[in-house]
């Protein structure tokens, strides 16, 4: 099984804090990995490094055999945890933007996803509700035939119906020749999709492994293991 993501001894230090410390992990092709941890555990920093938006302090990161940079940005589809789209854009213009810059953007799939999400191309990003913006962003990210999908809190601000629409899109668009790294606090909703899970705390990997193995070995769901690992940190 080929590894799409290989991270070894990754450390990221800022001036006063260490966001990631000696992190090593691998994501095989065709796997969905859950990246779990409380706020400030280093999930977003790790995802930004994979997306080529943050430079590592030390250690090695390879995405599809390449160090993060211009090359990997063309193959990694990143969904940040905030609205990254310009407010002046319409949903259709955002699609045009992606189509112009990402060769793997599938316009037909984008139109299908917009229909599923009940969005229209003419709607302005600036006039959409938070949940609708989230659906537009998810549609854009999944319309790319990327090798690696990196999704940071894709369910934030979504109502239960929208959440199920996004989950459906996630499942329907996943291929065996790609991988996905998904960070979420809504563990119960998505744990059934995880092939692997990594628990981060204070920038370190505290627990990692095959999701099914962990469930069997510990006789508990991933959400319960989450509660166990992080004590009384509440999951939604």
């Amino acid at each position: 099984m080929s590894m799409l993501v290989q991270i070894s001894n990754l450390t990221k230090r800022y001036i006063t804090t260490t966001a990631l410390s000696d992190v090593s992990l691998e994501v095989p092709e065709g796997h969905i990995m859950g990246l779990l941890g409380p706020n400030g555990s280093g999930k977003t920093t790790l995802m930004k490094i994979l997306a080529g938006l943050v430079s590592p302090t030390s250690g090695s990161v390879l995405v599809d055999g390449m160090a993060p940079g211009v090359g990997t940005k063309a193959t990694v589809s990143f969904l940040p945890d905030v609205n990254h789209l310009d407010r002046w854009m319409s949903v259709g213009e955002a699609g045009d933007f992606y189509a112009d810059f990402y060769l793997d953007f599938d316009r037909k799939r984008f139109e299908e996803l917009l229909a599923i999400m009940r969005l229209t191309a003419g709607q302005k990003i600036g006039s959409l509700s938070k949940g609708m913006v989230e659906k537009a962003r998810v549609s854009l990210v999944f319309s790319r035939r990327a090798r690696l999908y990196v999704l940071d809190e894709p369910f934030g601000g979504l109502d239960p119906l929208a959440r199920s629409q996004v989950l459906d899109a996630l499942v329907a668009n996943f291929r065996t020749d790609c991988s996905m790294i998904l960070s979420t606090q809504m563990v119960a909703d998505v744990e059934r999709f995880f092939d692997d899970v990594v628990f981060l705390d204070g920038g370190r990997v505290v627990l990692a492994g095959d999701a099914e193995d962990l469930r069997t070995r510990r006789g508990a769901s991933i959400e319960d293991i989450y509660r166990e690992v992080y004590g009384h940190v509440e999951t939604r």
Partner: protein
Amino acid sequence: MWKLVRYQLRGRRLLYTIGLIIMGALTLYQATRFIGMQENPAQSAPVSMGVPLTMALFWILFYTVMTVINIVTYTQDLYGDTGYLVFGLPLRGAAILGSRIVLLVIDTLMTLLGGMTSVIVLACLAPGLAQQIRPWVGKFLLTGDYWVMCLGVLVTIVSFMAIMFFGVTFGKTLTNSKKHLGSVFSALVVIAVLWSSARLGLMLETRFNGINLSLSPWQNLPILGAGTQPVQFPLVSPLMFVTLGVLAFAVTSWLMDCKLNL
């Protein structure tokens, strides 16, 4: 890079439209000040000279606002959420920064052409001034030295902005996500670079005294009186400033590629 320029222009279409409508309306308003005035130069001279000059000042203000918007939007991309869109693109830092420079050149050319048109139109309508200006407009627009001067101004502005972009980017790489601290660092970097370049420029001008570019940009506007006299433009310090701008561009591109932490 050009695709990014196209999108950024699209994002600014409302701003450009509003800005140009305001400038057009101001030109029209200024033109109405000539209504009812006599063709007597002695009586109309203060208004006739004052109106085109005031309009030129309005265009300078317009350009200042556009320049501030350029810096603010770049800072927002570095510190704000839209940075994920721009810096997440499979483009090198040089292409992203290059698109900003192209936008700046477009703003400069738009101001230059809009400002010239507006001022020339007002001068050609100004009672007492129009008779003297009109025969010379065509010749003035074909004055090579004037356009050389404009090109020099454009290159200097682009270099200045490259240094500003460098300051903002360097401040960001030093302070990560701390916006206010980053702004202070950026300002300090820009001040330090400009101060050093001014000192170095003065030193170089003293060392290479006499290396000037002699231009007569106003030679075809004899109404200005001193138009026939060539103007001496220092050459060494602007060249050094442009070199600094190129250096700032290269270092900023490298910072974007290798050191940026969004």
